[in-house]
């Protein structure tokens, strides 16, 4: 298992042999190991990674101490990943070169928030006819029966807040790695707006190492 933190820069397309491949460009790392959690002390094993520049005056005293323990520069984002603890020490750097072209990666992030949305957008309800005097357009319709059961069932699909959820996209193909600029090119889309924090992990489904061309 390997992992790195990064940020979404945006999407574009690249030519590979005779194919046009849609890619998401990520700025991945450099990350620093800020803490290694061990079973004896913390009850579980994980590695805490840090990413992103931070002005020194933005660091509060407790965090300053936390970074001092790892003897590293303060970073903006922290995230815990269940990595094999033995391979990591506090203060260690993690760079994009842990990934190579042809690898598969899972990417987690917070999806774009859609606000308070109706059932058509949120749950894919069909809605009613737009015209011909239908008087039923995008409303949810009936939400249950009458005296029995005298309530709305839990989990009923209703309007509400949509998006801004933790989303993981699995098995994205690594199309390119730019070590100099710390960029990672993945085939397909990743969650969230541009500039949002992402956790990029080695794919759990793995899959055979393949050439970029399918």
């Amino acid at each position, binding site marked *: 298992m390997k992992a790195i933190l990064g940020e979404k*820069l945006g999407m574009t397309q690249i030519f590979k042999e005779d194919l046009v491949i849609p890619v998401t460009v990520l700025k991945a790392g450099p990350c620093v190991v800020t803490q290694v959690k061990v079973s004896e002390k913390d009850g579980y094993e994980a590695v805490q990674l840090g990413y992103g520049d931070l002005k020194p005056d933005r660091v509060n005293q407790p965090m300053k101490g936390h970074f001092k323990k790892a003897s590293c520069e303060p970073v903006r984002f922290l995230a815990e990943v269940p990595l094999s603890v033995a391979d990591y020490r506090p203060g260690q750097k993690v760079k994009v070169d842990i990934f190579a072209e042809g690898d598969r990666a899972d990417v987690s992030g917070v999806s774009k928030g859609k606000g308070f949305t109706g059932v058509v957008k949120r749950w894919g309800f069909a809605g009613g006819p737009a015209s011909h005097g239908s008087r039923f357009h995008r409303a949810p319709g009936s939400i249950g029966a009458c005296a029995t059961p005298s309530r709305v069932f839990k989990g009923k699909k209703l309007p509400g807040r949509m998006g801004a959820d933790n989303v993981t996209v699995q098995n994205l193909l690594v199309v390119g790695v730019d070590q100099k600029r710390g960029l990672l090119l993945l085939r397909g889309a990743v969650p969230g707006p541009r500039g949002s924090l992402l956790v990029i992990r080695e794919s759990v489904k793995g899959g055979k190492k393949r050439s970029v061309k399918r």
Partner: protein
Amino acid sequence: MREIETIERSQLREDVTPFVPGDTVKVVIEIKETTGMGDKKTVRSRTQAFQGLVIRRQGSGARETFTVRKISFGVGVERTFPVHSPILKEITVVQEGDARRAKLYYIRKKVGKAARVRKKKLS
């Protein structure tokens, strides 16, 4: 954003023939064909030409595409190519046209003599 621009710039081809909508162009593309499976798999490549009128050029940078229209056996055929695609072996301008608009969609509704673009006069 600057990183994405750099990536797109690295995808650009420098040998793109200049042409505009209204021109008649001949596009030669390379097609890779695979036959057989596993060990018997062989890849052959051949070229194919597509000649017709450029009716649109759209997009910018590495994402720019153009559409060529021709009449094949009485049926209108349009094909869209990425300008910077590596499969394009050659683009030659057969005839320069003098079109007064950027998108020549009106050509689709025209038949015969009306479905032409004036030839560019040499100045």
